């Protein structure tokens, strides 16, 4: 009981929502796609990664296939892949635009995606074409509910 209270206080400080049933964390102020990618935005600049829910379900990431800087990405379309266990899984961009930076650390340390999905495990930075696309994404509350419903269905 005491540790759960501590965890709630820590989560509140870090602006994390922790739903105890699923154990995946969701960060406020980010936007989320239904294919489990997140985007942090500031004006036309965006940072993209995969969520804690996604990394938890995928397992240990052993390889990340990254695009090159300068590549065009389209909302909802694949731009790269992660390999975990015996599977490659597509990473889909939550926004359209141009890739301006790629997290090269992931080439030597793919496990950053598991250890720090919202911080050091970021995957690409994008210059967005149309910030209006963000309106079609879920906020943290909607995404938390989406994950709960998805897990409950299976």
């Amino acid at each position, binding site marked *: 009981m005491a540790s759960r209270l501590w965890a709630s206080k820590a989560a509140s400080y870090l602006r994390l929502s922790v739903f105890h049933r699923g154990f995946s964390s969701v960060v406020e102020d980010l936007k989320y796609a239904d294919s489990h990618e997140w985007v942090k935005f500031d004006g036309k600049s965006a940072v993209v990664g995969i969520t804690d829910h996604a990394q938890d*379900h995928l*397992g240990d990431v052993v*390889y990340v296939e990254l695009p090159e800087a300068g590549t065009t990405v389209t909302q909802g379309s*694949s731009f790269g892949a992660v390999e*975990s*266990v*015996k599977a490659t899984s597509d990473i889909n961009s939550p926004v359209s635009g141009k890739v301006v930076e790629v997290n090269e650390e992931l080439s030597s340390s793919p496990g950053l995606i598991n250890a720090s999905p919202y911080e050091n495990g970021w995957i690409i930075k994008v210059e967005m074409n149309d910030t209006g696309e963000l309106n079609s994404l879920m906020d943290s509350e909607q995404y938390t509910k989406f994950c709960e419903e998805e897990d409950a269905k*299976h």
Partner: protein
Amino acid sequence: MTVSQIRNVGLPLMKLVRWEGVPILRQLQLEEQLLRTSSENWCIINDGTKNPTIVMGISGISKLGKPAELLKLDRVLNDRIPVIRRFSGGGTVIVDHGTVFVSFICNKDAVSGLQPYPQPIMSWSSQLYALVFREFGDFNLRENDYVFGDRKFGGNAQSITKNRWIHHTSFLWDYEVSNMAYLKHPARAPEYRMARDHLEFICRMKEYMPRSVFIDRTIEAVETHFSLRPVRLEAMETDLNPRFAHSTKLLTKQELEAAGFESHLKTSSLSHSL
């Protein structure tokens, strides 16, 4: 209606393709294209592939020098064994006429209650094959391999897109000992392998069941989930876009030689620094 037709009413449709000896490169390229561009469910069974071929997973050529960690490159180059980089994850295998391939390509909602992630798909496949192998051996899924006891006879790989997934398996019906000599012991190996040499780690399916029984039983097991419709290869290929850009490819001699050279450089610089 026949009994099996009555049983299949209400099951999702799956197209069944049965091949014999189709080259593995052609099979993998077709599978990649069906995964990415088809909206239908598919089961592909390829009974053997003509020439011995090494097939590496997506990360097999990711870093220069990596093929040299997985393959005895000098021998591979000398004997001109083809090396393919496939679109799915997983490890390196050598396949030939003794390998039977079974692949499932499905929409993410095709199997009711199945989450489209690696572990649930792997688990679903193992339950299907448990039906196939009942009475024939101590079958199990062990760290993502199909085994009889503690000996591997089936290697799995998957690729998962936004709305679809593929789970494909290469089954060791039989193998040539000489072919296994092209592969090195991988750095990333399952725990249950326990540092066993390749030939102590794998087994031949033919010592457990007849080949035709395996294929027939696999089809019967698939029919518990899907209503199967046989399709011919030629009919399939006319519907496919010939300009599809495959990531599955045959590695060139230059790429393999460069991989061997890079590995040599790494080894040399290590020994100098010591």
